[in-house]
């Protein structure tokens, strides 16, 4: 009952924001919000994003400040999540880690989404040699296991957060390109595309104005699931030591730091791990909900 109210409040505010004329266009948005999976997921990721943005204000301590006298304190009133070996507040570090997680999703997945959509559109619409070149690049990238290739790229570029975003983008655009290409191949045979050609629209307009809106849905679904995957990959890389470098409060790096101390301080690795779990579940729920709504 409560949930239903929350949904209708949101949908009503959408109506207010965008006016009555565009109601039909926002039907889908409302449907997504009404779907329990995606609603819970959206709320979870919304909270994560807010926590990430306002991390400096929410976090009770400076995540980098070492207070060696308070080393390895268990969770308690002064430090809710305890402190690590150097006396840094684990809670503050987890909160700042949220911002890094959000950045990885937005930048890594964002670049992959845009590049993949463009590449897939070009190869699906024009076919011929453009298609051959793009798809052979995709094939060769996808011939390697995802994680191994990202590690290899990180080894070339050197560790660090910035390189991590790009390494992830370089590898994951391929999936988008393939999805988009297959959609374009089938969608461009539709009569409305032929009609658009017959009316004299340019290729650019047909690709972006007519085909893209009709073929973007599956990539949006994939992107939300990809966010979950990318968070895991980033954490794994930092855990292995080729991703974010200490003292950056990245969750994977924090788990790596806490690993040796599991017996004396379980909280150091556990809380960032819970953060990862929370984020992955959130994105997976959004993905599930979107798939129900957007894919026929």
């Amino acid at each position: 009952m409560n949930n239903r109210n929350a949904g209708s409040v949101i949908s009503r505010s959408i109506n207010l924001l965008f006016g009555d004329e565009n109601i039909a266009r926002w039907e889908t948005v409302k449907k997504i919000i009404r779907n329990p999976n995606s609603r819970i997921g959206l709320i979870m990721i919304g909270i994560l994003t807010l926590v990430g943005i306002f991390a400096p204000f929410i976090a009770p301590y400076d995540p980098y400040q070492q207070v060696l006298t308070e080393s390895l304190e268990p969770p308690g009133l002064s430090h809710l999540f305890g402190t690590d070996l150097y006396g840094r507040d684990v809670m503050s570090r987890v909160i700042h880690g949220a911002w890094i997680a959000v950045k990885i999703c937005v930048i890594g997945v964002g670049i992959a989404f845009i590049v993949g959509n463009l590449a897939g559109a070009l190869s699906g619409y024009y076919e011929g040699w453009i298609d051959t070149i793009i798809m052979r690049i995709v094939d060769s990238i996808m011939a390697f296991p995802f994680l191994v290739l990202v590690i290899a790229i990180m080894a070339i570029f050197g560790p660090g957060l910035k390189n991590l975003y790009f390494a992830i983008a370089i590898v994951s655009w391929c999936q988008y390109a393939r999805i988009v290409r297959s959609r374009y191949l089938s969608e461009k045979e539709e009569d409305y595309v032929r009609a658009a050609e017959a009316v004299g629209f340019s290729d650019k307009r047909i690709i972006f104005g007519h085909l893209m809106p009709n073929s973007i849905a599956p990539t949006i679904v994939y992107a939300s699931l990809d966010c979950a995957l990318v968070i895991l990959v980033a954490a794994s890389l930092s855990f292995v030591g080729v991703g974010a470098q200490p003292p950056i409060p990245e969750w994977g790096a924090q788990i790596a730091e806490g690993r040796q101390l599991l017996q004396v301080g379980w909280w150091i690795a556990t809380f960032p791990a819970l953060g990862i779990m929370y984020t992955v579940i959130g994105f997976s729920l959004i993905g599930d909900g979107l798939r129900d709504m957007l894919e026929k």
Partner: protein
Amino acid sequence: MMNLLEIKDLHTYFEGNGAIVKAVDGADLSIREREVVGLVGESGSGKTTIANSLLRILPETGRIVSGGIIFKGINIRELSEKEMQFKIRGNEISMIFQDPMVSLNPLFTVGEQITSVLKLHQDIGQKEAKTKAIDLFRKVRISDPEKRFDNYPHELSGGMIQRVTIAMAMSCEPSLIIADEPTTALDVTIANQILNEFEELIGEIGVSVLWITHDLGVIKRICDYVNVMYAGTLMEQGTVKTVFENPLHSYTFGLLRSNVIYYEPKGKIPTIMGELSEIPHQGCKFYPRCPIGDEGCLQESIELRKIDENHSIRCIKPEDAKRLSRSKNHGFQGVC
């Protein structure tokens, strides 16, 4: 009078997996100003390919191999892609498609789609385009045009959408409209209404029309001139009156014979036996299915020749066909 459009010996082939399909293999056709020209033939005879060749919107695998398409004195084959987009498509030549339910983009309202065409080809703003679009909707008898303007294609019926596509085709006052079986996907009553309105509209704005169809009834009703197509070539062409009353090609005769409206059947309805795929390499393409053909028909390639001012055929034995059309034993077998 000068011809608006002249197609001379057009060859359009499709290639794929090493095979070549000659979809249009030597078609000659002309359309004069303010004339409604019918193009009739069975499925797969290349009617739509001619239409697509005119606008150069052939699929990837198809290409125009030879021949000329002269529109208002300009050879369409020599125009650049840019010139095609801005000057010809939608502006000078527009097209109405067969299935109204899939010829509009499902994600945009019909209003957005028609105004986008208007804005593309004419230098007008959104407001002006909207008034113009609503005027057009009114012209094609869409009830409550202001409200329909904001509807999505799935909210309208097939007849309504076909009216919208007709409005779109007429929006930029083209010189030629290609109507690719626009009534085939509609039910008979709606098709009838749309035909009535279409007839009125083309009289009103004075546009030439190339009407592609299977339906001889439609041809007889709205066309001035008819072209009968078989296996990528034109078999017979002439004014509707001469061709329908005095068909000189056995294929045309067979088509007419199999239509209950023109020849009251006694017993079984006669059909043209065989399939379109049986085409000899040389000579008359209709030979395997022709009731009057003999070896002579396969000797050499047969040219389209003029019988009189308004009538030409691609057959060497018009007398036999004439006799056939008068005899009771028409040579076509009945099946049902």
